[in-house]
């Protein structure tokens, strides 16, 4: 249950190189997890965005360090709660910073190649809801 209301919507901010097919598809590697710098746990960082318009979602990108190179994202894609394949990975709602969540449980898959299957599924689902950002 989210403190931001339901149904939940999860936005993944995307660097330009993760947009494909004339910005109509999300590259699979946009959802390949990265190790947390402190704990080493594999995570994919997202934000809950239900109830927010595009402008407010853009604010999340500007007020948080979204990209590893601190450049603004080119877009975000959204996965709706009902489409989330939660039998595969789990959501950790830490809300630090505000509305931030992590997709966790990737260690269950013991190789990048197996993780890639899940990432592909997430990328394909989120390709239905790509929103370009103009910074």
């Amino acid at each position, binding site marked *: 249950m989210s403190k931001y209301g339901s149904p939940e919507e999860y936005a993944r901010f995307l*660097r*330009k*190189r*993760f947009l*494909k*097919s004339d910005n*109509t*598809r999300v*590259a*699979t*590697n946009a959802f*390949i997890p*990265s190790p947390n710098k402190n704990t080493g746990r594999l995570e994919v960082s997202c934000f809950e965005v239900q109830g927010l318009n595009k402008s407010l979602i853009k604010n999340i990108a500007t007020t948080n360090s979204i990209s*590893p*190179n*601190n*450049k603004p994202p080119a877009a975000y894609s959204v996965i709706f709660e009902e489409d989330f394949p939660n039998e595969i990975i789990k959501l950790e709602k830490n809300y630090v910073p505000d509305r931030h969540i992590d997709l966790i449980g990737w260690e269950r898959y013991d190789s*990048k*190649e*197996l993780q*890639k*299957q899940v990432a*592909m*599924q997430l990328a*394909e689902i989120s*390709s*239905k809801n790509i929103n370009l950002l103009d910074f």
Partner: protein
Amino acid sequence: MMIDTLVKDKALIKGEFDEFQNELLDSFSFFNSELSDIYSDNIDLKEKILLNLSDSNKYLERFLKQVDLDIFFKLTPEVSIDDDGEISIEWFGKIGSRCSLTFGSNGMIYFAAIDQDSSINFKKFINKESIFIFENEIEKISKSVK
């Protein structure tokens, strides 16, 4: 160089091959620039990732010599570089279907595909006897976009 060697008898796909090669080079350049930003204080890690990229590209070139290029270019292949430097190529069909090849820096080539019913097909292969799995998937996806 590679283009001349591979497509000398395949004039019909030369345009696609040129475009693919250009996209690959652009991706290298963009990725390299991003790495410089991210790892400005960790040169060792940056060098390791660039080595992965170089090795991955070597195996991609080897693959291109074995695969049927007419099938490879049946749909537009799109280049992605993973954060660890390994090259992935993806082919997109109708929304809900795609397939990808990842060229591991260790020489392994990984195939994954998803169909519109969300079923996932995954194979790991390292020799040319298994290429038909990939070729069949490209055929299938390309039919879905017609």
